[in-house]
């Protein structure tokens, strides 16, 4: 039962993998563009496994941000995951767990969270845990595999094309803009506007990695202000 549930989860992870692989390849390409060793780039994906914050990581490396700030910004970026675990456990509605909680947490990305919350109801309760582990494993494998392809084969592609080399600088803006379009309908405009203005103004006086923190905090403050005025 557990085995087949795992493979059903693996099958259902294909939709996530379709989204992950091209972005992971782009990540690998963008990272080696900064002269980071391919094995280090793959290590980023193996150990951190958080797409947006990995792109931030290389953006911060490119800005020559200091060690402590890089780690702090990545933690801050991933703080939203704090709410995912309890919500996933609640949605699974299991009588008894077979796997340690660490297995539940390891692959809990935005996309896995969304897929699990949306599809748990379609799985029989005894299958849910195996299905969820399969879903996580498929998504994780596609992210790490895609990164490895970009990191190990990207150098050849870059060497052959000056336009590709130059265009890789646009990978991050394109990804962030695509993500912004994705969330724009669900997030109050006031939060997005506050973060935009705060970041833009901060860039005039502060290093870019500090401007990012200023923008994030401005968004948080804007949200709290909105709650207090409700």
């Amino acid at each position: 039962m557990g085995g087949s549930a795992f493979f059903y989860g693996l099958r259902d992870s294909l939709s996530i993998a379709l989204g992950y692989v091209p972005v992971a390849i782009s990540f690998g390409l963008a990272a080696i563009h900064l002269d980071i060793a391919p094995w280090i780039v793959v290590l980023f994906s193996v150990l951190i496994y958080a797409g947006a914050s990995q792109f931030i990581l290389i953006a911060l490396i490119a800005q020559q941000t200091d060690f402590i700030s890089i780690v702090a910004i990545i933690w801050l970026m991933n703080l939203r995951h704090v709410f995912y675990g309890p919500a996933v456990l609640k949605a699974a509605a299991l009588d008894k767990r077979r796997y340690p909680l660490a297995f539940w947490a390891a692959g809990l990305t935005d996309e896995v969270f969304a897929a699990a919350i949306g599809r748990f109801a379609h799985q029989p309760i005894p299958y849910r845990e195996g299905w969820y582990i399969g879903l996580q494993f498929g998504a994780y494998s596609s992210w790490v595999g895609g990164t490895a392809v970009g990191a190990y084969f990207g150098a050849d592609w870059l060497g052959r094309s000056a336009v590709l080399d130059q265009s890789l600088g646009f990978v991050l803006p394109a990804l962030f803009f695509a993500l912004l379009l994705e969330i724009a309908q669900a997030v109050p405009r006031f939060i997005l506007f506050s973060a935009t203005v705060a970041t833009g103004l901060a860039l005039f006086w502060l290093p870019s990695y500090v401007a990012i923190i200023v923008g994030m905090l401005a968004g948080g403050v804007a949200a709290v202000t909105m709650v207090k005025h409700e």
Partner: protein
Amino acid sequence: MSNYQFVIITVLAGVGTFLIRFLPLLLKERKTSTPYNRLLHQALAAIGPAAIVALLVVSLAGELRPDSLHTTLLPIFAGLLGVVLGRKLGKGNIAIATLMGIAVYALATASLL
């Protein structure tokens, strides 16, 4: 930055990210909903979207070259339009939107070279 420093950063970032995902599972769900919890929840929920906006602003600013504004601005606008187009063609798929944006940016850059 040396490979040794990269490994340390990766381990710290990875362990921290794992704990952020793991510790709330250990603490399990708290049914109580105090005003403080609500404020904290709202602030944390806003940090992700705010970060995306902040990163977009910073990354776009990094692409601009003040000495050749027109040759950097045109590909940027074209690339952003490409993202919008890719999103429509890919029915909301972020990967397709991103790749389309990069492709249009590359075409615009190549035409200006």
